């Protein structure tokens, strides 16, 4: 019955998010009833294919379940969303690139970098509104000019198209957890036993003949070690729980999001702290000076990844909650 699962999956991709899971469960039950009634308890693959073909193309079935009339023709919906994603993605890349270039060319001081960082999503949002607005108008016009039948992109759909669908279980990757469980203890041991590795790196840098303007204040860095260790230990606990459960439960979602918030707070604290570096002349721009460029990139990437990860976790969690609630209503 894998073909039935693939077919239901294909329909699900075209259903509105609201009630998607429940409609899919119901459709599967209905389709299996039909198959059994027509071909008995042990239908052949050909029987199943015939039943699916009679049931209709995924698009036509899904369309019957989305009873709300839309201003954009259903045949254009997939294309519309695809272009919308491209617009938002391209704008995000463009504004992030502008931010990074500004960071290194204008060398903003202190918390100005955070202000510039906040500007990135705001600008992306503003520009996306314009882009998506224009796109919507174009698609509305096209939809008005073409009837639904003319834009039925599934008119030549065949059951063979189901073969390319790869049904993936929503299980979390074990490899990620295993790698994390190996690397985190190594990191913890390294930080506790040999925190001077930073000085070793600084000395190696100076041996190359280049001048290092600012150096890490080892006393301040060492005071942060318990915090780094705590971060590592919490991650280990989380990864072990994830490995045990195999799927992200509600509690694990909350735990994971809390860890991200904690990591973000630590990063912001380091960013705000003026004592992390010992300044050896030149303009004192704190952590944002040119001479700490490597560390700067590391922190900024960390901050970006942290915010991104947190957002994606929140969206995933909310989506999961909505779907769960709808399927039990």
């Amino acid at each position, binding site marked *: 019955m894998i073909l039935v699962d693939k077919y239901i999956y294909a329909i699900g991709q075209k259903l509105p998010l609201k009630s998607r899971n429940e*409609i899919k469960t*119901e459709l599967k039950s*209905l389709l299996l009833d039909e198959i059994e009634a027509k071909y008995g308890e042990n239908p052949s693959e050909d029987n199943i294919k015939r039943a699916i073909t009679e*049931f*209709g193309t995924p698009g*036509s079935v899904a369309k*019957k379940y989305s009873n709300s009339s839309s201003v954009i023709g259903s045949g254009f919906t997939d294309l519309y969303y695809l272009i919308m994603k491209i617009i938002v993605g391209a704008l995000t890349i463009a504004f992030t690139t502008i931010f990074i270039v500004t960071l290194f060319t204008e060398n903003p001081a202190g918390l100005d970098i955070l202000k510039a960082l906040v500007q990135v999503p705001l600008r992306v949002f503003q520009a996306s509104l314009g882009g998506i607005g224009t796109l919507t108008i174009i698609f509305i016009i096209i939809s008005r000019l073409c009837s639904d039948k003319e834009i039925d992109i599934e008119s030549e759909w065949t059951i063979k198209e189901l073969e390319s669908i790869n049904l993936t279980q929503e299980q979390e990757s074990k490899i990620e957890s295993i790698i994390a469980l190996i690397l985190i203890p190594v990191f913890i041991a390294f930080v506790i036993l040999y925190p001077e590795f930073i000085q070793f790196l600084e000395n190696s840098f100076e041996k190359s003949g280049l001048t290092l303007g600012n150096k890490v204040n080892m006393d301040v860095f060492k005071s942060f070690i318990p915090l780094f260790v705590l971060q590592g230990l919490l991650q280990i606990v989380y990864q072990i729980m994830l490995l045990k459960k195999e799927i992200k439960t509600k509690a694990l979602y909350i735990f994971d999001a809390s860890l991200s918030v904690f990591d973000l707070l630590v990063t912001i604290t380091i960013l705000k702290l003026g004592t992390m570096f010992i300044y050896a002349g030149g303009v004192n721009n704190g952590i944002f000076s040119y001479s700490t460029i490597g560390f700067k990139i590391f922190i900024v990437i960390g901050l970006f990844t942290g915010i991104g990860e947190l957002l994606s976790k929140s969206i995933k969690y909310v989506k999961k909650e909505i779907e769960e609630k709808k399927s039990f209503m």
Partner: protein
Amino acid sequence: MKDDDKVLDNLLQELKRGSLVLTVLLNSAEPCYGYSMVNNLSEAGIDIEQNTLYPLLRRLEKQGLLESSWDTTESRPRKYYTISSEGKKIRDSLCKQWKKTNSVIEKMMTEDEK
């Protein structure tokens, strides 16, 4: 298909669509699942595509005219629909209206035959 046939086909479909809700409400006094409803209606002389009926059942449920429950005791889960108390009220009102319209139309048809 000729233009006349097309027009007739569209009008017949509209007529069928208009009576569909009432036929479903009249056939849901006992709990029944989607496929059994298709069969019941078919046996009663109303042919309906499953892909028309299933979304309709969901819509009627959303409107509070039908109630549903999942039966998980069998080999695979099935969703059963039954008419709700609100659905019964609406069904009775629709039946009254149907009879009224029917008698008016029959009267018109008899006069037309004369």
